[in-house]
């Protein structure tokens, strides 16, 4: 797993490449905790190059989503590959997360 972070405007963007699972969660979790510590965090997780997510990875995203809401912010995910989208759909996480086709649409949603 490789992670890359950047900031566009006031949106903290995280890109995760490869397997996102129990073994690779800690640095992602640390980053998410830090960016959701300030009021009104806007976080976008780009999963375009994520090939696999397990339940621990999903729990990390859910935890960050809850923290964002507590801090009056939001967390979106975008660019899910088919197998990863299927996991979100099967477990109904699509009800909890705002999922966008690409970064552009996700960032637009933050601005609306």
């Amino acid at each position, binding site marked *: 797993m490789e992670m890359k972070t950047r900031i566009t405007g006031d949106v903290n963007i995280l890109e995760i490449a490869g397997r996102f699972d129990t073994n690779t969660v800690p640095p992602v979790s640390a980053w998410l905790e830090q960016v959701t510590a300030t009021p009104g965090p806007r976080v976008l997780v780009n999963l375009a190059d994520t090939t696999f997510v397990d339940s621990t990875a999903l729990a990390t995203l*859910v935890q960050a989503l809850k923290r964002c809401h507590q801090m009056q912010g939001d967390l979106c995910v975008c660019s899910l590959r088919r197998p990863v989208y299927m996991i979100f759909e099967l477990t109904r*996480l699509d009800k909890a997360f705002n999922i966008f086709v690409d970064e552009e649409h996700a960032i637009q949603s933050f601005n609306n």
Partner: protein
Amino acid sequence: MLVTLLSSQYARFTALADAWLAQGASAFGVFQDSRPLIYWPAGHRLARPSITAPITHNDEEIADLRVAGVSGMAAEMRLKADATLISYVLQLENELQCMTADLATSQDQQLALYRLTQSMRDHVTIIETLQALVIEAVRMTKSHAGFAAFVSSDGQEPLLVQSPDGFMPDDVAWHIYWHTHTAEREVILPDPASDLLYPENVENMLAVPIWVRGSIMAMMGVTNRPGGFGTPNIKLVRAISDQASAQIERMLLYQEMFDQARLKTEMDLARRVQLDLMPHQLPTVPGLDLYASSRPALQVGGDFFDFIVGDDRPFLFSLGDVTGKGLSAALLMTMTRSAIHSKAQFMPYPTPEAVMRQSNEDLYHDFTRVGVFATVFVGQYEPGSQKLIYANAGHSPVIYRPFDGEPELLRADSTAIGILPVSSCRNQTLNMRPGDLLVVATDGFSDTRNSRDETFDIERLIVLVDQLASQTACEIANAMLETVSRFGGGRNQDDDQTLVVIKGAAS
């Protein structure tokens, strides 16, 4: 510089002067800014030189040679040649001094690196190592402040140290860490091309990533060095970060050995909790052929299954998976299983929907506090009804295969317990006629990996259930466990594998 050369080479300059005086010159001297530095014979001030020739350094005139009492082309050429030679010697002298200074600095740095290695050996924790690292780096680079950060790959608290303490806000330091992590190379400020936000108090900065076991796990930064950071500083800080990398690797190894022993005890305990709490006997339910099994992974997860049977009450069963590993997952699993069990056992009219909604309400706040969730499937069967009612909170894979039809993957009807404050679970109904088959498994099956890093996947699981459909519940469960085990090719299981197989039977 010229004055130094004049004093160190006084005898040679005297020889030059003597040669000029012997050739008929009345005086010879070296002048700087029209003031004499040295001259022969004593007492002659060389106020009116007959010839002068410039002494240069880096193409700039810095002084001149003067003679009085001789003239002509030959004398001019000779004086010019003397001045050129002195200029060249001056340049060599200068280069020698620079090299000596570099050598001294390099020796200092080597000594400092040696001291750094020695001092790091005394530290037994990573935070102590980072503290020593920052203090030494600030001292060696002659900077005003420094900081270092470490993000472990095993979920321990990220570490940040600064010297002096609180030089910059923690979030700014972390921002620099993630920027360096993404850039995968040193970050230097000022840099007009960098998109790194300029921290307050910082005039200049050098931050280098520290590679540990092939990936960036730490970073070290030094700030506010008078004169900024040039190539020698970058080289030095890289050398320090290499030392730090080796030391952190040693420390991780030590910690891992220690943790492994602790983990083994914890996992043994978690495995006992998990296995002891699973039902040891299968209930007999008229109209159903059922079987359940759970195989914990080495790093125990939070899988569970449960049966709730009571006189004059419908038969209920549950299967779930709490996120996380080890003892914490085992404890949360116990909590979830008990919440569901007590509701199914004591509610006046328990339905899967009611059990799930109530359990979500009970567990939501605790789960939010600890950052976990549980996917749960609850099913209910009234003997003789040939119908199975179920509710599914985010659980997958669940495969239903009617005796006369194609297998289908059942999608959850709400998110897992602990994600949203109110569950949107609804009762769903499935036929459970003789031969109809329902397999509720945990992701330990679909996520099983082989040596080529391929996952077993849900598609293979559906095909497998279809192939096994004619067998008994027990045979189906055992064949599924064996098939994924074979697929894994002897690798350690990543996650628990738990399943409940329910098949309609003649009552």
